């Protein structure tokens, strides 16, 4: 995403008023993006009559299909169609005094919201974020003031509830200017807790969040759930690189091609996979305990020690030039790969700034490329001293 200056005043309000009266007497159908949520979505359980027409009803208990969907999204299978219709939903048996909770139309966001509200009734207003989660959509502005104001008007929220309060996830705040929403729609934005899990306590406290509810953590569990998607993406690349390096290693050993493959080729595959493991699994898991602030440094050390361990397990002969060159090659290559993967984990982390990432990349990327290329050169060179 590109940088943009956001001083809070620059919200693009163009088109808010011309588009708002979607229920005008125009003979054409309403703006397609402002259609009500469909009643026949697989997770809907019947509907509720309301002044704004029929509203799909959903349950706080997630079904097996919902849970499988979450798992598939976490490992990157079919994630792109993982959406719910934007619009209004009834959770349980809401009435005119029930709270209104706003979320994104990424199904995992929607499910984590309703799943947190077991035994409660509420209105859920889903914004059209193109299937992107609240935090990322807020950064892009699709979970934003304009969409919220338009959606409030499109679903006729003022006819559904008597009060003027809407609850947004705190992580939607980068996209929404609460004071402008009040001015444009009459509804007052309350920023709820960061984690949907804290919603019952927040609601019971009269829409008051504790400090702990307002602080974004990056716990072991939160880091761990991000590993599969990173790993799957990286293993796709590894699946191309490993066969190539496997074949090359057949030419680098001291024996014939096939015995070399069995000895060095298998080690090569193990080394590449270990480097991926160090960068995409070990680094996220050990993040707070690895030295340094820059992710590349954390990843470099994870890769470095993994390489040493692997070489030790293999019992590499550091007395021969072949062994020294090969050993150094793998230390360099594995550290570089691990550092690069760790650096890419900045995007999944919850505390890195763009300014910081750019600063890190200015020195880290050249170092990674340099280490990687020198590693490959040493590795190829080791073949001449076999």
């Amino acid at each position, binding site marked *: 995403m590109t940088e943009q200056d956001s001083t809070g005043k620059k919200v693009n309000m163009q088109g808010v008023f011309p588009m708002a009266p979607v229920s005008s007497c125009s003979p054409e159908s309403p703006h397609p993006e402002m259609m009500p949520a469909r009643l026949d979505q697989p997770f809907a359980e019947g509907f509720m009559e309301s002044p704004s027409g029929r509203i799909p009803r959903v349950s706080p208990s997630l079904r097996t299909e919902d849970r499988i969907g979450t798992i598939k999204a976490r490992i990157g299978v079919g994630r792109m169609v993982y959406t719910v219709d934007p619009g209004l939903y009834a959770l349980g048996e809401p009435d005119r005094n029930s709270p209104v909770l706003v979320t994104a139309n990424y199904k995992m966001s929607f499910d984590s919201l309703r799943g947190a509200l077991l035994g409660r009734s509420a209105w859920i207003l889903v914004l059209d974020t*193109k299937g992107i989660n609240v935090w990322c959509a807020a950064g892009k502005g699709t979970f934003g003031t304009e969409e919220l104001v338009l959606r409030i008007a499109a679903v006729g929220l003022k006819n559904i509830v008597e009060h003027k309060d809407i609850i947004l996830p705190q992580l939607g705040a980068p996209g929404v200017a609460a004071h402008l929403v009040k001015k444009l729609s009459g509804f007052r934005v309350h920023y709820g807790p960061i984690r949907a899990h804290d919603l019952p306590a927040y609601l019971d406290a009269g829409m008051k969040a504790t400090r702990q509810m*307002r602080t974004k953590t990056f716990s072991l569990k939160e880091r761990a759930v991000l590993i599969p998607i990173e790993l799957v993406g990286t293993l796709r690349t590894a699946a191309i690189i490993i066969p190539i390096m496997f074949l090359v290693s057949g030419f680098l050993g001291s024996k014939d091609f096939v015995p070399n493959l069995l000895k060095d080729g298998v080690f090569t595959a193990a080394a590449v996979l270990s480097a991926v493991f160090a960068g995409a699994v070990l680094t996220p898991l050990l993040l707070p305990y690895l030295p340094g602030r*820059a992710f590349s440094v954390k990843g470099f050390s994870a890769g470095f020690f993994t390489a040493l361990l692997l070489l030790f397990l293999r019992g590499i002969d550091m007395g021969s030039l072949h062994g020294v060159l090969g050993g150094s090659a793998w230390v360099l290559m594995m550290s570089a790969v691990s550092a690069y993967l760790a650096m890419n984990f900045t*995007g999944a982390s919850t505390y890195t700034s763009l*300014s910081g990432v750019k600063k890190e990349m200015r020195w880290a990327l050249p170092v990674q490329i340099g280490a990687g290329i020198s590693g490959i050169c040493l590795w190829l060179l080791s073949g001449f001293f076999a």
Partner: protein
Amino acid sequence: MRKLSYLKNVATLTVDEARCTGCGACLEVCPHEVLRMNGRRVQIQDKDACMECGACSRNCPAGAISVQVGVGCAAAVINGMLGRSGAGCCCSIDPDNPSSQGPRCC
């Protein structure tokens, strides 16, 4: 768990205390307790914790906070350098052409 903190002295966050009305909207939306109330004005207490999400500046009715907003995602920066807009981070998915990107982070 130790508190995770990223690089020092890089965040672009600034507060214009003269314009601050002390409403506290920014304190509520900041996910990392970067700001605190000092009397009737807000001030920065932990600049290095700022992730430049822009929630505070967006929600400041007085326009007293400015920050260069962005997503701290190396994959997105690399894709930007390569001239690709789609692939990389979740935060740079092209909604009009979602199939153009591989699955990443969130």
